[in-house]
């Protein structure tokens, strides 16, 4: 991918299978080794949100989160996928409990001698406001369980698109051992629309897609080391990157533990006169030198991407 797509490799392009266009269940199955996927607490268990129907919202039998256990590159793994098509990927009581309980069970596996890793597919606007306080509480529990597992095995976050990862779940993304993004993926705490309505259009113009991607987009987040690996929207490329990320194991110090690095980065920027997003990587590289970027390897293995075609309006609820 260093050639910047000047020549179209048609055979690779035709062989490519888009990851973004898959639903959460298909994404989870596509990542795991063929024939090993087994869904837990699936739609037939019918554990629905008890809070939606009284509000006139139709619940779903899986509450918009799929949990699929299997093997990844031969190693035990569990994939937790948030379905962006249901309630904007909003986290409610049941969907949040599914994520937190799965991470806790994977941690228990590790303590019992089975080195289970977890993959989080994060397409979510954060707290599902129809379940407000219970959504907020479960996200805190997700963060706690994620940290419990992260000490034992990698917890790899994937933000492929099209919705992106916003709200409280962006904090969970920040806690992951490593984060994989596509150019189409976005990561931020508050979605552009929420900022615009809270602070005005001069603060953030939510209709300016170039601005949004320049700040929240996968290229920017990996370029500024807030994410680790930039991959193409291709099933094989994403799977390869995930296997590589799990293979790197548990680092000595996680991104969210590097307090000194955060301090140095904030000190390097005057909030009254911040750099343009495009210049931020260079500003930060001066105060926190980057190690060899792992995205190189993943990119070289990947096949070319087609032009981005989706632009969903980001939301970011809370």
């Amino acid at each position, binding site marked *: 991918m260093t050639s910047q797509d000047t020549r179209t490799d048609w055979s690779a392009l035709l062989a490519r299978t888009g990851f973004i266009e898959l639903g959460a269940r298909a994404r989870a199955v596509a990542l795991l080794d063929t024939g090993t996927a087994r869904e*837990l607490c699936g739609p037939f*268990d019918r*554990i*629905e*949100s*008890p*809070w939606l129907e*009284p509000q006139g919202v139709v619940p779903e039998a899986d509450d918009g989160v799929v*949990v699929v256990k299997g093997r990844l590159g031969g190693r035990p793994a569990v994939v937790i996928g948030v379905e962006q098509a249901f309630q904007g990927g909003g986290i409610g*009581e*049941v969907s949040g*409990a*599914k994520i937190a*309980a*799965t991470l806790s*069970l994977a941690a228990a596996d590790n303590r019992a001698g089975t080195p289970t890793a977890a993959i989080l597919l994060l397409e979510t606007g954060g707290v599902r*406001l129809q379940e*407000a*306080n*219970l*959504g*907020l*509480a479960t*996200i*805190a*529990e997700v*963060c*706690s369980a994620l940290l419990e597992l992260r000490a034992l095995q990698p917890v790899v976050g994937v933000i492929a698109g099209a919705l992106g990862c916003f709200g*409280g779940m962006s*904090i969970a*993304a*920040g*806690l992951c051992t490593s984060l994989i993004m596509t150019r189409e993926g976005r*990561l*931020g*705490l*508050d979605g552009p629309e*929420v*900022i615009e309505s*809270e*602070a005005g259009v001069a*603060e*953030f113009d939510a209709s300016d897609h170039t601005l949004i991607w320049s*700040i929240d987009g996968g290229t920017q*987040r990996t370029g500024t080391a*807030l994410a680790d690996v930039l991959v193409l929207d291709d099933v094989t490329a994403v799977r390869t990157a995930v296997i590589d990320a799990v293979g790197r194991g548990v680092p000595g110090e996680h*991104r*969210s533990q590097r*307090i000194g690095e*955060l*301090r140095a*980065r*904030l000190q390097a*920027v*005057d*909030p009254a006169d*911040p750099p343009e997003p495009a210049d*931020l990587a260079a500003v930060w590289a001066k105060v926190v030198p980057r190690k060899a970027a792992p995205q190189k390897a993943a990119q070289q293995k990947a096949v070319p991407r087609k032009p981005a075609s989706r632009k969903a309006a980001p*939301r970011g609820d*809370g």
Partner: protein
Amino acid sequence: MSRGRNWTRALADGDVSDVVPSVITADATLGGDVARLIAVVPDPRSPYHRARRGEVGLREGLALAEAVTEVVTGDAHLPDDRRRPIVAVVDVPSQAYGRVEEVLGIHHALAVAVDAYARARTAGHPLITLIVGTALSGGFLAHGAQAGQILALDDPGVVVHAMHRKAAARVTRRTVDELDELARRIPPLSYDVTDWAKLGLCDGLLDVENAGDPTGGDVGKVRDALTAAVERARRGPRDLSNRLTSPAARRTRAASRRVHEALAAQWR
């Protein structure tokens, strides 16, 4: 007026110091322990113009992590059942909604704070949250929501929620009146702290005379409640599993409990 500052001052044994102007700390004797209090307070002169009213922004996320980590590092040599309690005094309107915040990755700054709080709890520090005002959204996730014990004042000015009323109505495409009507029937939607306290997330709802500016009696009462919470935290689990086992949670969070049981049964 800052409830966070008033309560921190009132509970403190001595001086209140600041990590940055918007994050203050103090020591408070609770029974046989000297706890470290940490609060986020307004700083009208903050260089981050979207974080001047007590919001948890970039600088606050970092300062919270520094304040918590200082306690954890300082007590690392002690047996883990002798480590100092940490009390998050919470009155936060929200996270900071702003462009520079997103450019610099506020989600990461809040993750750094969450990480530090959770690490303190798992290292054995009793981690207690005292909600004296608003505890909203990402601001609460970063400052307070990782605690093993959560206490709140029983006062109309105390609000725990995912998003303030107007914004929540807008995002869910309802009027504020419709939202209030639904909240009367659906407890997790309610902005009333007594409804929140029924969800199984509250370890004590404290009746005080003056929630904004505590009386001597209020301070004594809250200090006793904090001391009892420290004892419970020392005896209890170091993860957040107690949030699903309380009598209130058994009623309100039955669906969460079913999820845990189903996943454990199918896990193998």
